[in-house]
């Protein structure tokens, strides 16, 4: 955490970002944060504190009411054609998972590879062998290789979560946004999944922003843990193994 911040390895930068859904109440108040390459930035906070909202600002699903965000040097906006190429490189595992229920597990994971496949071929479902292998490998990593022909609606909650993770892995992202991916999983599986992501992270220099409910899990895997309360960032700490390397209590005290 002590190396000087050279601006070129900052992947995400937020500067005094505010967000309101209804133009009356602010769900996020003056959030300032930056995420460097290859780090795991983890957000924790109470239910309703604005964590999922914050994540959606990063891939352009939401646009801030005030303030500025840059992601890979661009302002996120899902309607911007230029940002599209960046979106292809952002893996997103939403809290609601976003899986298509009526197709097979494998097809759901293949959706992650679609951005690399020729449009017409993908519509005819002529998919390159290599992408099918990619998808199968991702399923193997999350331990679902024996369920890949199953329809997705017939899976358990935890299995669905793992399908969503596999889809994001098959996408081969350089930035991963993960909203409570292990919340529904038991302790052992949680650890497995988190180790898996953490390995991938080191291998591919993946940058990630994650949301966790379990503070211990957050401290175990994060490089930076940030705490949200009622839409305000009240604390940001740097973590390295068991030691806290950086501590930044924001002046905005909870009211």
């Amino acid at each position, binding site marked *: 955490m002590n190396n000087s911040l050279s601006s070129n390895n900052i992947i995400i930068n937020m500067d005094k970002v505010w967000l309101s859904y209804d133009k009356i109440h602010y769900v996020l108040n003056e959030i300032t944060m930056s995420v460097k390459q290859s780090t795991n930035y983890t957000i924790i906070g109470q239910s309703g504190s604005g964590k999922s909202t914050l994540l959606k600002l990063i891939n352009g699903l939401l646009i801030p009411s005030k303030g500025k965000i840059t992601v890979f040097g661009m302002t996120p906006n899902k309607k911007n054609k230029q940002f599209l190429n960046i979106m292809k490189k952002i893996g997103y595992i939403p809290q609601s998972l*976003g899986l298509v229920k*009526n197709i097979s597990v494998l097809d759901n994971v293949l*959706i992650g590879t*679609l951005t690399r496949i020729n449009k017409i071929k993908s519509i005819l479902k002529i998919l390159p062998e290599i992408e099918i292998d990619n998808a199968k490998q991702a399923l193997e990593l999350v331990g679902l290789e024996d369920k890949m022909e199953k329809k997705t609606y*017939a899976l358990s909650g935890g299995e669905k979560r793992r399908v969503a993770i596999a889809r994001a892995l098959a*996408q081969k992202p350089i930035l991963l946004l993960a909203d409570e991916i292990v919340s529904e999983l038991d302790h052992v599986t949680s650890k497995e999944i988190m180790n898996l992501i953490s390995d991938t992270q080191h291998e591919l220099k993946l940058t990630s922003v994650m949301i966790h409910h379990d503070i211990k899990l957050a401290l175990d895997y994060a490089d930076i843990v940030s705490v949200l309360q009622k839409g305000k960032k009240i604390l940001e700490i740097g973590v390295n193994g068991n030691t806290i390397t950086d501590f930044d209590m924001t002046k905005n005290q909870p009211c």
Partner: protein
Amino acid sequence: MLNYKNNLLIGFLIIAFIYSYLILNLDIISFFNGLPNLLIIFNEIHNIDYSLLSVAFVSMIETIQMAFLGTALGYLFAFPLSILASRNLASKYSYLPMRCVLAVVRTFPSILWAILFVIMVGLGPFAGVLSITLYTIGFISKLQYESIEAIDSEIIDNITSIGISKSQLIRYVVIPESAPHLLSQLLFTFDYNVRHTSVIGLVGAGGIGFYIINYIKFFEYEKALVFMLVVLITVIIIDLCSVKIRDKYIIKFATSKKLN
């Protein structure tokens, strides 16, 4: 339930009912006086001309084929139009005009389409197929875009956020997610169209209705009756079959989805 607004509405409906009844000058008595007239038709049952059964059967098959073609064509044309008319996939420059066009198409009953196409392409099954196609487009596109719009918007948002194209979204998300609805609508429309196709024959658009109207014109009720019975039996059979299919495939599909 019975607040002021509802009372007003109920009062209005009662007044509209009485007013319509009086204005149309309906004579209930003639209904009962006319009942014996029906006996004229039923008396013909004794001298039904069973030799016509094979003709009736062939023309029923023709009717079903027309309904099948019209349903399939209408359904296929309707789908891309429905995509252009759905608010969650198309921009308002697309869905607003598209909805207007489809609303206009929908206002035409099948028999009006049939008259138009008989004028255009002449008597016969071609006019029938065209009118069922147009009727199906108007009728089913609304059902289709409504089921497309019923797809959870979060799924669409989340999946577009990884940068896949609109066509890929339709192929991998929209169609599979709305498939149970789309299939049950297809079945329902075919079922429905068999009846319509029987009727549009009355204006010369081919199929069994064409025979029926011709026999009735010449007061050959005993012949018309054979054809009417064949229609009745066919409709009952198709109805039973589609209930079976729906129960077996679509309902099961939908409930297994709900369980999760």
